[in-house]
């Protein structure tokens, strides 16, 4: 890795490249044009997050930045975990927490050929094998601590302070083992030439991003996280691979094998992402930045299924009272977006805001309102709120969008508290929430498509700008 860094560095600063006359990349020109376009945007916006990191830099405490970020993300995860979880004290079926615990129980006690067949009516295992192995691992540790937590059949619906602590801890542990290193590796590579503050901000955002924390550490879920975390890891591994020195071959192989094992069972988002970036990398046509953009673009494409899901959800709730929890599927979209925070500050902020909002009905059922409001407030404050917002530097369109979105969310919450829905429309609030969120997601779908196209065929003006520079 160290070997690989030096040529990239010389690329990153145009002055040194000019002096030495090196051209290490065949597609140097377009690469630069994007860089410059990005960097004009990255000039420290008047935002609390950027202020914080430039403050640390000015105090010669840059090395502390990542520690603060990690501590904060740990604190948020742990304290959100203090709240209740889905299905707490609601027998006979409980909720997602019980599902995860139940999987630990069956994977630990049963041979693997029974995993997908055992009493499917009670939270039958319906996640890919990697999740099953993960459950087995957790079940193994749980059994060491207290066998009662994962006793076969007898432990159904088991709830205790200690077992909750254990379950919460497993989520956080895997967060810190898979998701967080993945994010950091990816962004370090992706933004290798960006300003230090931007890089730190980019790392900060996905780590404290409330949508994920609320679902994983509040509502309770591990698998989504593992999936996305590993896909992030895979992508970063692939992106790193050309620069990994020979001594680290083994490391690399481990990562290389990983996607094959996973790819079979991954959903389309991750597959498309990985496959595409592998192909493009081999052809060596596009730069790292473009690759990530494309990945984001295709993820945006893949929003469509999840949005359709939401439409189905709408129709379903209209007709029957069956409530299938599809709110969480938005996580798939939210995560890649939050990885792109520095490039797309404003869209990312609004998008995450709305996606947290879209999960409110779910969280409200889980009695996680307090955590919801606290983290949503924090998100708004950190990413977009007056007086640290971009209002000065950004156009009216964005200000108005932001105002409309925030105003609607506020209004909706007030109405939800004050008004009891009429008897002929019992799900009016859930419906209006989902409709609004869907509308916003659609808008973002088009916006990100537009951005992707723009990145593939950058307008000629930016190229001419480079020349004059």
């Amino acid at each position, binding site marked *: 890795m160290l070997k690989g860094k030096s040529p990239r560095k010389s690329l990153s600063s145009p002055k040194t490249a000019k002096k030495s006359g090196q051209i290490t990349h065949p597609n140097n020109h377009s690469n630069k044009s994007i860089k410059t376009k990005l960097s004009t945007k990255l000039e420290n916006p008047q935002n609390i997050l950027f202020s914080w990191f430039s403050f640390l830099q*000015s105090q010669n405490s840059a090395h502390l930045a990542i520690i603060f970020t990690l501590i904060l993300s740990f604190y948020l995860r742990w304290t959100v975990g203090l709240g209740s979880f889905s299905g707490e004290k609601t027998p006979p079926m409980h909720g997602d927490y019980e599902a995860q615990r139940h999987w630990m129980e069956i994977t630990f006690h049963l041979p693997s050929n029974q995993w997908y067949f055992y009493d499917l009516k009670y939270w039958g295992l319906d996640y890919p094998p990697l999740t099953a192995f993960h459950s087995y691992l957790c079940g193994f540790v749980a059994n060491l601590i207290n066998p009662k937590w994962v006793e076969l059949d007898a432990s159904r619906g088991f709830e205790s302070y200690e077992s909750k602590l254990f379950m919460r801890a497993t989520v956080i542990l895997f967060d810190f083992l898979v998701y967080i290193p993945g994010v950091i590796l990816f962004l370090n590579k992706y933004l290798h030439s960006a300003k230090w503050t931007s890089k730190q901000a980019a790392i900060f955002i996905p780590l404290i991003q409330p949508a994920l924390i609320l679902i994983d550490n509040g509502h309770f879920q591990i698998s989504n996280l593992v999936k996305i975390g590993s896909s992030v890891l895979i992508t970063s591994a692939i992106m790193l691979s050309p620069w990994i020195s020979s001594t680290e071959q083994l490391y690399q192989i481990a990562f290389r094998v990983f996607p094959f094992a996973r790819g079979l069972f991954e959903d389309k988002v991750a597959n498309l992402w990985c496959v595409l970036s592998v192909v493009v990398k081999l052809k060596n046509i596009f730069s790292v930045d473009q690759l990530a953009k494309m990945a984001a673009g295709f993820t945006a494409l893949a929003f469509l299924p999840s949005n359709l899901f939401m439409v189905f959800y709408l129709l379903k709730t209209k007709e029957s009272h069956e409530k299938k929890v599809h709110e969480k599927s938005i996580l798939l979209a939210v995560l890649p977006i939050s990885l792109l925070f520095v490039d797309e500050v404003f869209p990312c902020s609004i998008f995450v805001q709305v996606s947290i909002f879209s999960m409110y009905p779910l969280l409200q059922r889980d009695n996680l309102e*307090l955590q919801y409001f606290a983290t949503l*407030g924090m998100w708004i404050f950190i990413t977009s709120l007056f007086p640290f917002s971009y209002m000065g530097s950004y156009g009216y369109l964005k200000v108005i969008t932001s105002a409309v979105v925030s105003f609607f969310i506020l209004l909706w919450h007030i109405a939800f508290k004050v008004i009891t829905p009429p008897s002929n429309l019992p799900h009016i609030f859930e419906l209006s929430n989902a409709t609004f969120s869907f509308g916003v997601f659609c808008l973002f779908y088009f916006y990100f498509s537009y951005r992707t196209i723009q990145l593939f065929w950058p307008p000629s003006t930016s190229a001419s700008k480079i020349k004059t520079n």
Partner: protein
Amino acid sequence: MANLKNSVWIVSLFAVSLVFKVLLFPSYHSTDFEVHRNWLSITKNLNISQWYFEDTSEWTLDYPPFFAWFEYILSQLVFLIDPNVVKLENLNYDTQSCVYVHRSTVILSELILFWALIRFANIHKNSISSIIISALVFLSPGFLIVDHVHFQYNGFLFGILIWSINFALENKDFASAALFAILLNFKHIFVYIAPAYFVYFLSRSLKKPTYLQSLSYLIKIGFCVISITLISFGPFIYMNQMKQVLSRLFPFKRGLTHAYWAPNFWALYTVADRVLIFIYNAFGKMGISSEIASNTRGIVGNTNFGVLYDIKPSWTFIITILSQIPFLLKLWANPVPNTLVWAISGCGLSSFLFGWHVHEKAVLLFLIPLWYLVSYPFPFTSYFL
């Protein structure tokens, strides 16, 4: 000065702390939660003449009158939101709404601390170190754990102390003395650091050029302190209840060590006694056993010793004062605000080490003033924190 605008750090510090503290709402709370809930209901439902007599709950009112009034004001607020919280007979009432409402009052009362810290930074022209100190105090794990998990109002009380120190830093001595008197009437544990204030003002008065000025200075300080104390205790003196009030405020029936030992001198003393009992019994000299059951039995009661002398409250005070003398001498010689902060911290430490029935939480008493000293070039202060 870096690119840190004044409003930026103030607003973000508050926002961050708000998120931190709100997220702690569902966490564990100790019996102090019920103690304060009971006080809310006492002050809400009873006439002032009964405040210090009420004993439906075992957690009787044992803070000075200002704190009772503070609870009275809070109880009016809480009553509007959840009337069940402030019912006397609702012992151990801790529904989610009750906990959330009650915990919000802690955050609300901490605004005093927040304001004091902003003022502190302003006095130091918002230098980086003063801002960092403010942030460290406001987000201090001590407050997070003791106030927002365990449940107490230390943030509010230390806010008053910091206000008092702020005034001292600005050389507004009378305001400083008045605020400290108010603080004492909120929670009398701060009497441990009163010697520092006493020496500070006395020494400052003697440094005045003429005797007349010294005298008028002292009279003004005395007037501030005495009038505030009269406002606080006056009604109880009038109702002839002082004996009852004082017995509630200073419960010497409680033992030398708290049910959960503070790591102080008396903890070592008790351990030494245990070891000696063990040795005595091993040599079969005499049977000291059943009566001296366990000092850590978790009930607030008297502490008896088997071999070593039983400790009387007065002795602990003498030892505490003696151990405070070095700090006080230094302050006497040089009565400037910075030395006052030093002495406050030192006196707090002495009381923690040698005081009677010290709670482990009392560590805040010297910890918080010590934060002030972080920016001074004393290399060892940071080790305490």
